[in-house]
């Protein structure tokens, strides 16, 4: 509940995770399936995390590890973590990962997250604080939402400092002040 008002937390809950139904469920239908409104046991579906976790806790479905934490991604992160396109795989890589770990208890995902963040935050740091010019959109498109937030925070604080140091008007005059009054009644 601590994150009840956190929009990112809510959006992270929307990410799809694969799940398998353990029981037959009446009154619901899968999209793009035939006209039955019944789900057979052992049918595979992709559910948003908030729904999947509730079903998982009620033992109606079991949640599988999403593909963004599979072996291939692990190997890519191990090889060159800074240049893996995590955004296209899961834009809330870290937050969703934490939630999945707590739900399934697969702690290898936790260490994957930690390793990935440790490698990748340096890249964000260097890019955000040093390069003054605008980076190509290529780098930004690799970052997950969490990393983009960090990048923007660092970028804007550096930019604010630079603009202060370069000077410019110290006191901004309200636009009203310069204006001359119109004579009344002419």
């Amino acid at each position, binding site marked *: 509940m601590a994150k009840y008002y956190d929009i990112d937390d809510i959006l992270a809950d929307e990410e799809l995770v694969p799940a398998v139904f353990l029981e037959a469920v009446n009154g619901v239908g899968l999209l793009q399936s035939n006209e039955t409104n019944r789900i057979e046991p052992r049918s595979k579906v992709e559910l948003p995390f908030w729904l999947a976790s509730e079903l998982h806790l009620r033992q109606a479905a079991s949640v599988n590890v999403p593909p963004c934490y599979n072996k291939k991604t692990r190997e890519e992160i191990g090889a060159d973590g800074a240049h893996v396109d995590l955004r296209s795989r899961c834009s809330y890589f*870290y937050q969703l990962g*934490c939630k999945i*770990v*707590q739900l399934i208890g697969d*702690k*290898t995902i*936790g*260490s994957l*997250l*930690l390793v990935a*963040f*440790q490698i990748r*935050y*340096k890249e*964000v*740091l*260097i890019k*955000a*604080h*040093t390069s003054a010019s605008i980076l190509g959109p290529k780098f930004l498109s690799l970052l997950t939402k*969490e990393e983009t*937030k*960090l990048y923007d*925070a*660092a970028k*804007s*604080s*550096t930019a*604010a*400092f630079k*603009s*202060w*140091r370069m*000077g410019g008007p*110290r006191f901004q005059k309200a636009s009203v002040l310069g204006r001359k009054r119109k004579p009344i009644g002419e």
Partner: protein
Amino acid sequence: MSGQSDPRGSAFSAAELEFLAEDEMIEIVPNLRIKPLSLICGDFGPFQPQIPTQVPIWLAVALKKRGKCTIRPPDWMSVEKLTQVLEAERDSASSFEALPFHYVEISRLLFDHARDDVPEVYMVRSLIEDIKDVRFHKIGTGLEKLSSRTYAMKLNLSAMEVNVIRPFVTGSLETFYELTAPEIIQESQREEYRRPQTADRGPRRELRR
């Protein structure tokens, strides 16, 4: 107190820091006679011509603008001192020289309002720029060693430097904290993750002063 201009309230704006820096004391030589000023923040004066006295920078700037005093730049703002500091900063890769907490702001205020009172102003200005650049570079390399085990870094960082890196550092430390929570990561892996950190202690110790 913090962050009127920042919606998240996590950082000061540069102008706010400048405002805070104006409370630092500085020596002026007045050229007029005024009785002691009793203000809420303290009593200043009496002001006698040619008798130096200590006032806050905002007062010094106000008097200077009216041509009622000359400002004596602080000791550290001399070419010799700054050259020493710059050399020391360049020599040690990880420690920071002790400069006033608000050196960036104070120097900017003096350059703006009292250029004629700072001897060799161009030299001083470029030295301070160099020092600032060297220090920012060192901060950047220091931050690459950040981890969830970083708890308190006691450096001689100045207000402006801290403020610039604050959003990034707090954000990434928070993420590290979340990712190393005991329910996320296995205890053995935490230990494993810690070990290189303790091995890394040597250089990091140097980073602290």
